């Protein structure tokens, strides 16, 4: 029985002739903040999709807290303690910010469907609790004042934070963030870095982070894995990765010029 929180054991994701991810071994311990980087198309989001159950790995297994989760439906995995944000924002466009976040709290409801239809006191109390949880998550992300605004009315950076608030409302033990800093200006990225560390501390989370913004990656990640064409080409501390020849060759060389 391994002590690691998440374990990808020789995971391969094949789409017809294309191997998006090939033989990936990745282990994440409880409490870590790990970064997953690589050029576009390297397979990073595919890794997320395998972990969260959007895809079942063609070969290999994903284990969470010792139990195999690969092949389970996405919603079972989400209820089991892993939530995520998306590379392209996927908010519920016709719901308010509060409702967006409250949806993620749904797995933690106590009242059944019949209670909801009959409006029992038990249901009312449960509903208040769910909304309170949602409001708390909005507050952590600094969005409490926008609770009743439509989610689409938010600025881009705020929408990204809303997605994080939503993922948190699911009370995860492992949080997957897919390019949370995409499209943010340097100041917003700084705030995001502080936010992620704050959230990790406050909720005792383990975080796996996909990101292209090297300042963010090097700034907060304790360990980094690098993918290129579906293969893991390097893994180590930020310092090790920064100077790793294969990584520089594949990716960082152009990045450091523009970072």
């Amino acid at each position: 029985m391994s002590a690691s929180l998440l374990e990808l054991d020789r995971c391969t994701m094949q789409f017809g002739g294309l191997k998006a991810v090939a033989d990936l071994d990745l282990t994440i311990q409880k409490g870590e903040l790990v970064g997953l980087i690589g050029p576009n198309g390297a397979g990073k989001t595919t890794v997320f999709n395998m972990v969260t159950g959007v895809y079942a790995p063609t070969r290999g297994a994903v284990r969470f807290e010792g139990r195999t989760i690969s092949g389970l439906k996405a919603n079972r995995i989400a209820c089991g303690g892993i939530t995520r944000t998306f590379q392209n924002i996927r908010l519920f466009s016709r719901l308010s910010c509060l409702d967006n976040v409250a949806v993620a709290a749904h797995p933690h409801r106590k009242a059944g469907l019949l209670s909801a239809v009959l409006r029992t006191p038990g249901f009312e109390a449960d509903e208040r609790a769910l909304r309170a949880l949602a409001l708390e998550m909005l507050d952590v992300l600094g969005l409490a004042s926008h609770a009743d605004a439509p989610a689409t009315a938010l600025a881009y950076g705020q929408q990204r934070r809303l997605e994080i608030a939503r993922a948190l409302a699911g009370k995860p033990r492992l949080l997957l963030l897919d390019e949370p800093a995409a499209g943010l200006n340097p100041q917003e990225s700084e705030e995001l870095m502080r936010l992620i560390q704050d959230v990790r501390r406050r909720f005792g989370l383990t975080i796996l982070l996909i990101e292209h913004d090297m300042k963010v990656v090097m700034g907060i990640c304790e360990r980094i894995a690098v993918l290129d064409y579906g293969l893991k080409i390097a893994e180590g501390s930020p310092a090790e990765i920064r100077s790793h020849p294969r990584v520089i060759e594949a990716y960082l060389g152009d990045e450091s010029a523009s970072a």
Partner: protein
Amino acid sequence: MSEFLQQLVNGVTWGSVYALIALGYTMVYGILRLINFAHGDIYMLGAFIGLYTSNWLRAGEAPSPAKAIAVLLTSMAACALIGMLIERLAYKPVRRSPRLSALITAIGVSLLLENGGALLFGADPKFFPQLIPSHNIALGMGVTLSNQQLIVLVVSVVLMTLLRLLVLHTRVGKAMQAVSHNHMAASLMGISVDRIITFTFMIGSALAAAAGVLVALQSPKIEPYMGIMPGLKAFVAAVLGGIGNIPGAVVGGLVMGVAEVLVTGYLSPTYRDAIAFVLLIVILLVRPAGIFGKAVTEKV
């Protein structure tokens, strides 16, 4: 055995009609991701326009091959125009709307054509004149083919071959293929997406009109609601073959025709319409992409 072969011949004849209609569905779906509910009604209009043209040419009294061809071509041309009008007026405005809105628009157009037709032509059935005197051709093994069936087969094959040549070997055809893959990319390549879409509608409508005339030659009774069931069946045929796939529509149409004739012959005529629905449900539950289709997955 000879009965079975006869059924097969009948089935293939019917199937080629379904194929002609199915081609229109599949092409429009391929470029617009829209199920053109009104397509079956174009088939109906084809029959009616054929009727009025025949009467004008007095083709019923003094039939001749030339008049028959004129009736066919006139009907095809007229329906191509109608298809163009429908596309421009009703479908273009909802091209970027949610799919349900477009579907409802299509349903609305269908109802409009049917009920407008009932208003215009009268809801009572009319009789298509006999443009070609019928006689049977014995094929041996106890199988007969009426010359009308033969004409249906020949015309269908000719039209489908022409379509294949158009799509695969002309610039317009290649443009149609491009638009069916990606509007944006096609337009960046200098293709006028609007014109190609309109053109596709016109071709599809012309084929449906041809089907209408061909069927009316065989079964002369026509009425404004005659397009509903054939339209639905042709749609099932298109889905069967893989919607968006042109050879698939032809195969689907033939399968549909043969299945229907066999069920009617060996089971019971009351299930004739039901077989289409059963086929539809089976294919959508077992292999939604159809025989030749490719399943499209959404990128997360």
